[in-house]
């Protein structure tokens, strides 16, 4: 039986196991929306396409399944761009579907035409412009395969209106055949042998774990490796939750806003085991002095990450989980480690701390949120100071519980992402930790939250500044606060205007009760926390310095 391209698209999405898409209608996707009208797919209408992309991203990060977003041609498609770039930088499996002007109008600067495959070339793992309805089913199959296998990432499918309206027979396209796409899961045995030898010879090993541990489902293997070696585990921002934050061997985050003990450990280690990481500049800072005395093992599924930023002594290219297993099975557990004892002492000596002064402190807000939720919620954040405090003062013990924009650092990500997380995890509590600047970038999604009753709790760490930029102006630009002071609405009234609940907390003693109440309210809640305005995120490595030269 012949079907329209749009119906084929829906069939193909269902065949990939898609249950939810985040989208926004428009002219070029009219045929697709018509097919969605009676499809067995949940469609979440956001209030901006950027919100749809971030929500799909949050959905994917929380569930491990690919997130799907849909937008019309032209401005609809370009509004997805930030969200796609964000997913690309953090290796999030996503399929973005855009409408396009009919093929006969392509290349003529037609109404709402934008070359979205051209625009997204550098920010997608792959993309497609489907010019023939007969190619549609196979394209969708390939897109999901590419997005979810190997190092995950976003794939875009651009569908001209005459293709989604055109007719063809739907046939299951069968398994994917891509001659230029190979995933290497099994590491080379020789590489594993060299890694095992280096580990056995090491006295002061440090594990540096990133988002690849979570993407690769390797958290249990990571825990085993750390406990066998009695090695401290430093995670990147993306790696938080990949190793239990409460574990004695956890040294928290490393790098620019890492803990002192994590950074000291990296500087003094004789073996650095990078697991699913990319030696990003926010981690290494002055790269020549990063782990200067260490043999470096780098385990990653993406061969292009090996040697991209630092020279690697022992590359292990393969699936992180598979690679760790192969290494672990050849190791003997260590019973004693003076190195570990040294780390424990550093942890006592250089805790991450702040000074109380009677005014509401952001750190105590996060700590109290942790105390109330006991780590049993999913946390999504925006970008800036609050993000770093959320990394420092909340302990993430399970993978996929900390959802944050790492690589791209996208303000406005947190709230729509939290909605996607809530859609993926309807029975869990979702807390969005945001700032007054970040929240205002996508606060229109309050309407989405209320419409679908996604009861996300938003904690706005409100200092009336673009705080992280202000901090840099304070430290490196002589306190010249150029346009970083930012006003905002009354967030309580804003929430109420949308039909959500709003609260304001001004004293430390009120945080706990407010959070408990927010969690009881069965709808979205915004809590405004007006905090000490010029609080800084510490410790901090000044730009260009080695990571053991820390302020604070």
């Amino acid at each position, binding site marked *: 039986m012949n079907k329209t391209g749009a119906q084929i698209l829906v069939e193909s999405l269902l065949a990939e196991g898609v249950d939810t898409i985040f989208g926004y209608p428009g002219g070029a996707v009219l045929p697709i929306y018509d097919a969605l009208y009676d499809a067995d797919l949940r469609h979440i209408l956001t209030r901006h396409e950027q919100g749809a992309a971030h929500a799909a991203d949050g959905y994917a990060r929380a569930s491990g399944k690919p997130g799907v977003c849909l937008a019309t041609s032209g401005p609809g498609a370009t509004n997805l761009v930030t969200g796609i770039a964000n997913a690309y930088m953090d290796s999030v499996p996503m399929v973005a579907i855009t409408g396009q002007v009919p093929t006969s109008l392509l290349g003529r600067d037609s109404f709402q035409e934008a070359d979205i495959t051209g625009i997204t*070339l550098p920010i997608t*793992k792959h993309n497609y412009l489907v010019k023939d309805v007969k190619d549609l089913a196979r394209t969708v199959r390939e897109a999901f395969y590419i997005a979810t296998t190997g190092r995950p990432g976003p794939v875009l499918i651009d569908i001209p209106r005459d293709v989604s309206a055109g007719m063809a027979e739907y046939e299951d396209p069968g398994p994917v055949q891509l001659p*230029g796409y190979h995933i290497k899961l099994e590491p080379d045995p020789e590489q594993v042998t060299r890694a095992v030898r280096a580990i056995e010879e090491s006295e002061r090993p440090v594990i540096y774990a990133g988002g690849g541990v979570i993407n690769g489902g390797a958290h249990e293997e990571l825990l085993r490796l750390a406990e066998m070696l009695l090695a401290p585990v430093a995670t990147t921002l993306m790696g938080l939750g990949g190793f239990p934050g409460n574990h004695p061997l956890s040294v928290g985050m490393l790098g620019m806003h890492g803990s002192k003990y994590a950074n000291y450990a990296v500087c003094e280690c004789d073996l650095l085991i990078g697991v699913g990481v990319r030696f990003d500049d926010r981690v290494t800072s002055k790269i020549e002095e990063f782990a200067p005395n260490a043999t470096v093992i780098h385990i990653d599924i993406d061969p*292009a990450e090996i*040697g991209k930023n630092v020279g690697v002594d022992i590359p292990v290219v393969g699936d992180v989980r598979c690679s760790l297993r192969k290494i672990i099975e050849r190791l003997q557990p260590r019973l004693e480690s003076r190195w570990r004892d040294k780390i424990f002492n550093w942890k006592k000596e250089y805790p991450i701390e702040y000074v109380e002064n009677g005014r509401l402190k952001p750190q105590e807000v996060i700590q109290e949120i942790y105390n109330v939720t006991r780590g049993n919620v999913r946390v999504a954040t925006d970008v800036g100071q609050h993000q770093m405090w959320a990394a420092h003062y909340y302990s993430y013990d399970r993978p996929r519980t900390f959802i944050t924009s790492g690589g791209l650092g996208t303000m406005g990500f947190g709230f729509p992402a939290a909605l996607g997380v809530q859609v993926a995890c309807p029975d869990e509590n979702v807390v969005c930790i945001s700032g007054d600047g970040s929240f205002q970038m996508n606060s229109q999604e309050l309407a989405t939250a209320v419409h679908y009753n996604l009861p996300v709790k938003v904690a706005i760490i409100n200092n009336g500044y673009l705080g992280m930029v202000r901090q840099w102006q304070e430290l490196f630009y002589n306190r010249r606060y150029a346009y970083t002071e930012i006003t905002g609405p009354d967030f309580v009234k804003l929430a109420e205007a949308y039909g959500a609940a709003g609260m304001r907390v001004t004293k430390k003693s009120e945080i706990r009760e407010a959070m408990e109440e927010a969690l009881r309210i069965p709808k979205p809640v915004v809590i405004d926390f007006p905090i000490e305005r010029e609080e800084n995120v510490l410790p901090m490595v000044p730009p260009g310095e080695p990571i053991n030269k820390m302020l604070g």
Partner: protein
Amino acid sequence: MRHTLAVLVENNPGVLARVAGLFSRRGFNIDSLAVGRTENPDVSRMTIVVEGDARVLEQVTKQLHKLVDVIKINDITADEYVDRELVLIKVNVDPAQRGEVMQIADVFRARIVDLGRKTLTLECTGNDGKINAFEESLRPYGIKELVRTGKIAMLRGSKYTGLQDNGARDE
């Protein structure tokens, strides 16, 4: 050091943009890039000459491999290979000088492909060095127009860069 890469790609629209975009965005320097169809109509072959040390080349090949449309990459620099480039040159030549220029053409085994009242258009193939020398020898007459194809290359002997491996170094 200059490296010559033989890159097989799927003959999809946009594949050239993907490859070119990758080089510019990652800051790799392309000396030349020639592309065309192969014996298989679904597969195109790019010959890319790229400048860089071993580390740069490693990144170039790895990043190229990440492109879904890129099927195979051979760095043939260290192998024995034949390489050719074609140049078309239009030179100012008075009828009186024609003989001289035709002699130069003979030396380089170039051919006259067109004749104007005051110009000659010559075609020459060869490797980089030969083409450069040919160009230099014509420069005194005044080159009005010059176009080069960029280098194409092929392994010598029974080795080849195909979809199936045949002993060539696969990066």
